């Protein structure tokens, strides 16, 4: 098991109330361990509820196994916790749909998200899974900005999307793998249609 440097950013001790100085230990699905401040955890509704329900003491945190986050790898989780530490103590936006969403990407977030698109999508997925509202907002904003003024072909490259032809081919392959006979029947049907037959039977 490897241990990432923790906390992921310097902690401003004076800014944190005494009772919030506890650091929790989390483990990614590839066994990377992270220490995260209680205040930073509050940015994630999912993790905040989890630690509240666990009711760990400072001793528990040290003595019990790290809390496993099985769906997220270490590389992604590191970015998530870096973000949470940087934004700890900030108000969590409430989106009730009453006002249009206006999202600005701060400099720190822009640098944090200067990553390849595959990792960016993993970060978005993690932000959604851990319910980190503002991280989700800025990462979605970043993805949206990538679309500006592009053609469909350019967007396919940016968003790692298959073309309609590739999509069809993948579906056919999946169908064939599942039921080779079904594909044979379909081809036979298409051939008969080409020959002008009205009925398959």
């Amino acid at each position, binding site marked *: 098991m490897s241990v990432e440097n923790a906390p992921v950013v310097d902690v401003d001790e004076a800014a944190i109330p005494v009772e919030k100085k506890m650091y929790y230990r989390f483990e990614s699905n590839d066994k990377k361990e992270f220490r995260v401040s209680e205040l930073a955890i509050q940015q994630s509704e999912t993790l905040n509820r989890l630690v509240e329900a666990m009711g760990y003491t400072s001793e528990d945190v040290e003595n019990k196994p790290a809390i496993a986050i099985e769906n997220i790898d270490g590389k992604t989780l590191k970015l998530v916790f870096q973000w949470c530490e940087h934004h700890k103590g900030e108000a969590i936006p409430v989106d009730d749909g009453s006002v*249009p969403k206006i999202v600005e990407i701060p400099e720190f977030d822009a640098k944090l998200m200067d990553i390849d698109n*595959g990792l960016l*999508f993993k970060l978005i997925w993690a932000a959604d899974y851990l319910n980190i509202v503002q991280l989700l907002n800025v990462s*979605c904003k970043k993805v949206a900005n990538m679309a*500006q003024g592009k053609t469909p072909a350019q967007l396919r490259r940016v968003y790692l999307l298959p*073309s309609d032809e590739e999509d069809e081919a993948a579906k056919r392959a999946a169908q064939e793998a599942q039921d080779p006979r079904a594909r044979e029947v379909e081809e036979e049907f298409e051939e008969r249609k080409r020959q002008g037959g009205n009925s398959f039977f």
Partner: protein
Amino acid sequence: MPSLIDMPEVVMKNILENLKDFRDVQTLRKTCHDLRNLIDDSNYDPKIRQCAIWVDRSLSSEEQRFGEVVMYYDYWNIGVVYKETKDGCLIAQNEKQKILKNENYLKIAGNDIGLNLSMQKSEIELFEILNGSRTDPGFREILWIPFLEHLSRNLKNRPRPLRVEEFKTCPLNQDEILLILPFLDAKSIQKIHFYDSFYTDGRPENPLKIDEILKLEQWKMASIFTSDLFIDLEQFHENYEHFEFVHVRVTEIMAEDLEKIRETFFHSPKLEFMKIRYHKLKDQPPFGEAILDERDWENWFFRVPNKEKILKIQHFEDYSCEFYDFRWIDEEKVPEYGGIQ
């Protein structure tokens, strides 16, 4: 490695909301089947606030005046031009141009706006369909009507009527209005304007017939109606008392018409203001002796049982145009010399 189509619904919605330009969403829809389905199921709303369509003939060619449709969205932030060419359609926006050979520019333009508005769920503040060459020979038959028909088909095929607060158009006859207005959401329409985009002096001899428009729910639900074009006053009577604000232009006005309007004001619970610009006054006004104000405008004031306010009728000439103005005013605003009847 995850891609955009692996994102959960809530994430997709968030990304779409952050797209500044609804045209980017349309481009996204063209990337692959899955994303198209995802976007279509996402309840995405482009939240277009204003849409102006201008149909005209281009002045760019000396040999032939090609038609063009210009669309502006969100108060001229986004503009797209569809131009007729010798062998197809040229689409231009910002610095980019695209030529579609053997395509009809009116059809492309009508379908494009239909597509751009297809996901619109929120109310459009202002929807304008205007033209600049309505007096040109053949303009109506070759450009204007075919475009409106393409647009009409798209509006008709929407799963729900387009919500528009203010509708503005410059028709030559009511058939053109009937291609669009019935397909707008009657519950949303507040203001209807018939506009003379070419600033001609109207056609007093041939006022706009509105008998079919008057039957529409959209007409009955609106609260403001204005028309720069001459309208048929006979058809208009009995059909405006639900409005709060009316400003119309009529060919001629008779004492009987003025009396009818005054009566309508007396019993309408909504009518607040009505201004009538007329071409010809047939009779003397039926309101008794007028009180002249400092500008020599004629005024009459009427008290009505069960109404706190006083009905003020004013007759005046302004920039060589003659008007009758009906409005409710507070009693303290009646001048000292004003004899309330």
